[in-house]
C-alpha cells in the first residue's frame, strides 16, 4: 500500500509539473556531445566487462557495484568513485587504477593495465553516472498487484456464490472469499502499521563506516564518539574532528583501504560536512532525551538500537513505534536506590518499596505513559 501512496503523488507530480522537465539546456555542441556519449557507452562496456580486454582480469563491475547495494561491499561503488574521482585528471586516474599505492588496492588491482583511451572512456562513463545517476532499478512485483489480484479473486468468488453458482460446494467460494479477504486485511493493516516506521531500515551511508570494526574489533567505547548521550537529548553524531583523532594516523582501513577514510580528510579539506543518512527517526512531535534514558535510566544502547557493535551497516532494529516505547515503560523498573530524585519525589511509592508492599516501581507508575512526557 505504501507503494500506492507513492505512486499516486508521483503521477500527480508528473502531470502537474511536466513543463519543468523540459528545461534541460538544449545541446549546443552537437559533435562533442556525440563523442562524449559514444565514449560513455564504451566506458560502460568496459566497466561492465562487456568488451574483451587484453587482460583476463575481472571486470570493474564485479567488485564495484554500480550504486549502493543493500549488502555490504567494501569496495567503493561506481557512483562513489564517480563522486570522488570524476573531476580528477586522467593521469590521476591512471595512477589509481593501474599503479595504486595503497596496500589493499595494489593487491587487488595487480595486473590491470588500461590505456589512456580506455581510461578516458571509463572516466566519461563515471562522469555521466555522476550527472545522470545510475539507471533506475525496476521495482519488483509489488504488493499492489497481489492486492488487486486478491480483490479479483474475491469478486469472482462472490459472483459465483450468489449468481453463477458454477461451483457445486458452497463452502469453496466462501473459503476463497474469507482467505483472500483475510489476507487483504492483513496486508492493509501491516502496511498501515508500517507507515512512518522504518524497521530494518539500513540505508547506505556516504562513508562505509562499520560499527563492528570500530566498536568490536577495535574496542572503542560508544561514548567516545557519541558524546552527548549522557547529558543531552541528542546522542550526537561525531564531528569530523573526532574521526580525525584517530584517522589522522590511521590512514588506511583493513577492508576498504584508503578510499573511505580519505572521505573524512576530503570533508575537512573542502570544509564540507559529511551528510550521514539518518536512520533512527522519531517524528517531530516526539521529544526523546538520551540523557534521561541512558544516564538517568541506565539503559544500554543495545536495548533500542540493537547490537550495533556487530553491524557493518547500521540497521534500525526496533520499529520505534509508540506502542514499543510504552511496552518498555510498562516493563522497566525504576531504580529508587540509585537516584535521590525518585525517592524524594515519589514518597508514597518509595515507602511502599521500602515496606516491600510492591516488588518494583515501573516507569508507568511514575507517569511514564503520560502524554506530555514526550509530546509538547
Amino acid at each position, binding site marked *: *500500500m*505504501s507503494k500506492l*501512496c507513492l505512486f*499516486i*503523488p*508521483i503521477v*500527480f*507530480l508528473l502531470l*502537474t509539473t511536466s513543463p519543468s522537465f523540459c528545461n534541460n539546456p538544449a545541446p549546443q555542441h552537437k559533435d562533442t556531445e556525440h563523442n562524449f556519449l559514444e565514449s560513455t557507452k564504451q566506458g560502460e562496456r568496459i566497466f561492465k566487462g562487456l568488451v574483451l580486454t587484453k587482460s583476463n582480469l575481472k571486470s570493474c563491475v564485479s567488485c564495484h557495484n554500480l550504486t549502493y547495494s543493500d549488502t555490504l561491499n567494501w569496495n567503493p561503488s561506481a557512483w562513489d568513485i564517480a563522486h570522488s574521482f570524476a573531476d580528477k585528471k586522467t593521469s590521476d586516474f591512471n595512477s589509481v587504477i593501474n599503479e595504486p599505492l595503497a596496500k589493499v588496492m595494489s593487491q587487488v588491482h595487480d595486473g590491470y593495465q588500461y590505456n589512456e583511451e580506455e581510461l578516458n572512456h571509463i572516466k566519461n562513463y563515471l562522469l555521466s553516472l555522476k550527472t545522470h545517476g545510475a539507471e533506475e532499478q525496476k521495482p519488483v512485483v509489488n504488493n499492489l498487484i497481489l492486492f488487486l489480484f486478491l480483490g479479483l479473486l474475491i469478486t469472482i468468488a462472490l459472483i459465483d456464490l450468489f449468481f453463477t453458482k458454477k461451483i457445486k460446494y458452497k463452502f469453496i467460494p466462501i473459503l476463497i472469499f474469507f482467505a483472500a479477504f483475510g489476507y487483504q486485511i492483513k496486508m492493509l493493516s501491516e502496511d*498501515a502499521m508500517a*507507515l*512512518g516506521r*522504518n524497521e530494518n531500515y539500513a*540505508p547506505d551511508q556516504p562513508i562505509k563506516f562499520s560499527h563492528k570494526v570500530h566498536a568490536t574489533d577495535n574496542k572503542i567505547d560508544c561514548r567516545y564518539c557519541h*558524546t*552527548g548521550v549522557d*547529558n*543531552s*537529548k*541528542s546522542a*550526537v*553524531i561525531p*564531528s*569530523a*574532528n*573526532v574521526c580525525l583523532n584517530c584517522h589522522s594516523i590511521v590512514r588506511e582501513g583493513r577492508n576498504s583501504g584508503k578510499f573511505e577514510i580519505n572521505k573524512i580528510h576530503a*570533508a575537512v579539506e573542502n570544509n*564540507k*560536512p*559529511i*551528510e*550521514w*543518512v*539518518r536512520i533512527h*527517526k*522519531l*517524528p*517531530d*512531535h516526539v*521529544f526523546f*532525551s538520551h*540523557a*534521561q534514558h541512558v*544516564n*538517568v535510566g541506565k539503559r544500554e544502547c543495545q536495548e533500542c538500537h540493537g547490537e550495533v557493535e556487530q553491524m557493518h551497516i547500521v540497521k534500525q532494529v526496533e520499529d520505534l513505534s509508540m506502542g514499543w516505547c510504552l511496552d518498555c515503560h510498562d516493563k522497566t523498573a525504576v531504580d529508587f536506590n540509585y*537516584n*535521590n*530524585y525518585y525517592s*524524594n*519525589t*515519589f*514518597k*508514597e511509592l518509595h515507602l511502599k518499596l521500602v515496606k516491600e508492599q510492591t516488588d518494583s516501581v515501573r516507569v508507568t507508575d*511514575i*507517569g511514564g505513559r*503520560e*502524554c*506530555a512526557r514526550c*509530546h*509538547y
Partner: protein
Amino acid sequence: MKKYWKSQQEKNESPEIKTVKHKPKGNLEQVLDIFEDGTVEAKSNRRDFLKLCGYSLAITTVLSSCENAVQKAIPYLNKPEEITPGIANYYASTYINGSDYASILVKTREGRPIKIEGNNLSPISNGACSARVQASVLSLYDSSRYQHPQIKQEKVSWDEFDKSVSDALEAQKGNQIALLTPTIFSPSTRKAIKLFTAKYPNIKWIQYDTQSASSILKAHKLCFGKEILPDYRFNKANLIVSFDADFLGTWINPAEYIKTYTDTRKLSGTSNKMSRHIQFESRMSLTGSNADERHTIKPSELNLLIAQLYNEILALKGLKKYNASESSQKIKELANDLFKQKSRSLVVSGSHDLNAQIIINAINYELENLDKTIRLDNPLQNHQAIDEDMDQLINDLVSGQVKGLICYHSNPVYNHHKGDQLKKAIEKLAFSLSIHEAPNETSSLMKFVAPDNHYLESWNDSEIKKNSFSLMQPAIHPLFDTRQFQASLLKWSDLETDYHKFIMKNWEETLFPTQTLYTSFKPYWEHTLQEGIFEIKNNSQAKSKFAQVDIQKAFDKLTQKPGTKNIELQVYETIALGNGTSANNPWLQEMPDPISKICWDNYLNISPKQAKEMELENGNMVKLNDKLELPVYILPGQAYNSVSIATGYGREICGKVGAEVGFNTSGFTQNGFSNVKLQKIEGQYDFAMTQTHHSMEGRAIVREANLDEYKKNPKAGNDHKHKYKNAGIYKEPEFPNHHWGLAIDLNACIGCGACTIACQAENNVPIVGKKEVIRAHEMSWIRIDRYFSGDENKPGVVFQPVMCQHCDNAPCENVCPVAATNHSSEGLNQMIYNRCIGTRYCGNNCPYKVRRFNWYDYTQADSIPNNLHDPAGLTSDLSRMVLNPDVTIRAKGVIEKCSMCVQRIQEGKLNAKLKGRKVKDGEIKTACQQTCPSGAILFGDLNDKSSELFKVTSSGRNYHLLEEIHTLPSVSYLTKIRNKKS
C-alpha cells in the same frame, strides 16, 4: 543550571552545521547563500514530499503520518567545544536600543540565539525583560535588514566602501559635518566617537532622543549645577506623585522603575506596607492605570497644578507663597499628604517645560526628598540629548551651514516633527552616511549605507547609570555582511578595527584599576563577561545643594499660561513599538496595547465625553488639522478636550511587516503638546482588538480591596470563597508527587505585556496578522485581560494575566473525543497536538477561553500545499532559526494552549535527576515568570510545603478564577489591593 559563557568567538570560525530533529533547516551558510540571491526558497525536504502527497486528498489520510523520506543527519565538521547539540548555552549580554536598556542572557541552541532572558545579577533590570527586549531576538532574523554596504543603493564591498567614505570625509574636511546618534551611554563607544571626531574635527557629535528628557537635564543644571538625570528611587517612597510621567511605560528607564515601584506594592509575606501612587495625566497611560488615584488633566493645565502644589507645600512649611490662583481642595490635601511623608515621597513629572521641572525640583527639595528618594550621585546616563541641539542641527542643515550628516541608529526624518524639512535638506547634502541595521526613512535618503550589526552580533559595553557597567557580547556571527558602528568608526579613524579589543583595552585602562578582587586583567575580564555586569562600589553620601534659581520667574511662567479651550494633542510612544525602530517586528506589532487592547495600529484616543459631543464611535474616522485622517478610539480616562496618538506607526520605509501599518504622526511634536482641530469625516475603520468587552459585569473575576480593609482582614475582597470541598460526585483528584502551580500577584502585575512576548518566543506561537486578529483568531497563549470599572471619564483599571489554568477538574479534558487533552500526574493539563483532530469542543468548554485553534496553516506544518497564511513571513528559513527546537510546531486544525512551559519543567526535572536530587524550589521558571519585570508570576510545586508558591497560595489573598464552577485550577491569583485614601 545556567551556564554563563565568556566568549563565542572561536566557534564562529567554522560553519556551524548541525541537524537536530527539529526545524533548523540547513546551516548558516546556506541561509546566507539564499539571501545573496535575494530570494527565499524552501529547500527540498520531507515537507515537499508531503506536499506532493497533498495533491491527492484521498490518500493524505494515510499519509498524514507518513515520513518515509530520507533525512540527513549532518554533524559539525569541527564541533566547538562549548556546544553540545541539544543543550542550550546562555551568554550574558546587554540589550541597547536607543535609550532602552536591559542586562540579559541570550539562550542559544546549536549556535542560534532563540530567546532572551533577564540577567538576575543586574541591579538595574533585575532579571527582567520588557516586551521589546523579548522581541528583539526576532529582529535578528529579519530579512529586511541591510545585508551589505551600499553606495547610492549599489552593493559594494567593505574595502571599496571604506575607501569611498574616507575619501569623501577627506574631501569634506573644510565643511561642517554632523554625527547624529541617539544618546550613547557606552563608555567605549563614546571614546571611539571622540577618537573619530578628533581625526575629523569638522565633525560635530549631536545626540537626539525621540523621548526627550532635556527639560529635566536643564532643570538640574539650573538647580544643582549638574546636567544630569537623577536616580529616582521609587522603592524608597511611600507616596509617589507623578505629573504625566509614564514611568512604568516609557519614561526614562521603566525597566528599573517597574521593579522598584512594584517592590513597594507587593505586600509579600507579613508586610502591610504599600506605597501610594497619585497620577495626574491626560491620556490613560500604563502608569496611570496602575495608580491608586488618578486625575485626568488636560496637558496645558498641568503647569498650574504643579505651581499650586508648590505653593501649598510652601504654605505648610510656613514659607511665603508665590502669587497664584487659589488651589483646589485636592491639591491642598495632596500637599498635606506629601508633607506628612516628607523625605519619603517622590514627585516626578514628564513635562517638557523647563519651568515645570524647576518647580518639581523645588517641590522635592522642600519635601526633603533629595538624597533620599532622589539621588544625584549616580545619575542615569541615557536620555542625555538636548532638544535644542537637534533643532539647531536641522536649522543648520536647512540653511546649508552643515554640509554633511552621519546618522547612526536614529530616524529623524520619520520621528522628528520637522522631518519634512530634514528630508529635503538631506537630499541636497554632499555627504550623507547612514549606519543602520535596516532601511528606514532617513537611511534611504543617504548616499552611503554602512549596515550595522544587530546587537546580538555585536560587542559593546554600557554605563546605564553612573558606575553600573555591563557588557554586550555577540551570540552569533553576523548573519549578513555587516559591521558594527563602532568598528566602522575605528576603521575610518584609521585605528585598530577590532572593537572587541578596543573595549578590552578601554576597560583595562579605566575600570580594571577600580576594583581590587582581581590582580590581572584577563580573569577579571572573563569574570565580568560571564556575569555581564560590573559595578563600582560608591559609598559617597553626597549632600545635594539646591542652587538659588529664579523660582519666581519659573513660577510666573507656569501660572501665566491660561488653559486654552483648544483641543490639545499629545504624541506618545507605545509599550510595544516605542519610537518605531522595531516596527518591522511582528511580535511587537501583534502585541495588544495594554490599555486599548488594539494591535497592529495606532489611533486617536479621544475622551468619552468628547466622543459623545462629536457623535463618534470607536473606529469612526476624523480629520486632524485638515491633513491627517485617522480613526478614533474612545479611551476611558482621556481628559476632555485632549486627544493623543501613538508614534511608531505609519512607517513608510520599513520591512514588509511594519510598512503602512497605522498612521504616520509626522509633523506633531512629541515634546509637549500641540493644539489641533478635529473634524468628523465619513468612514469606519476596523481595529484589531483582542478584547472588545471592557466591564467585568459585576463578576468576581479580579478581586479587589483597599489597603485599610486588607490590614483589618487579609481576606478582604476575597470573601466570595465558596465552601465546595468535594462538591463533585467523584473524589477530588490527588497529585501525590509533583503538583505544579502558578500564582499571579494582581497587585504586582502592571499589565506591561512582557510575559506575552516571552511566551511567544518560548513556545513558537505563530503570528496571524491584523485581519486575523480582527476575526479574533489571535494565538497568544497568555493574554492580559484589562477591565475598566466605574465612571468612564475616571475609570478604574485592572489587569489580569490569563493563561491555561491547568484545572484539576478540567472541563476541556472530558469532552475531547480522542483524549488529545488529559491530565498528568503532576497536575498539568496536557495538550497533545499530534492526537488532536480539531473539534474545538475543548475550546468551547473552557470557561477561561484560553485554548487557541490553528484556523489556518500559520506555520507550514500542514501537509496540504498552497494554504499558508503567514503574513509576517515567519516561515522563511531565516525566521525559523528563532524557533525553540524543544517545542513542536503546531499544524493547521489543532488546538494549542499554555503548557505551563512543560519543556522547562521536563528540563528541570531531568537536571535534578542527573544530579540525583529533588527539584529545588525556584529552579524551574516558566517563560512568563522569568521575564516579568515586577515578579508578579510565581511557579512552583504546590506539594512542596517549603516552597515560595505554597506560602503565597496559603495567604488570605489567594483565590482561583471562577472557583465557583469547581474546576480546581492550579493557577491562582492574589487579590488586588489598592491604596486609596479612605
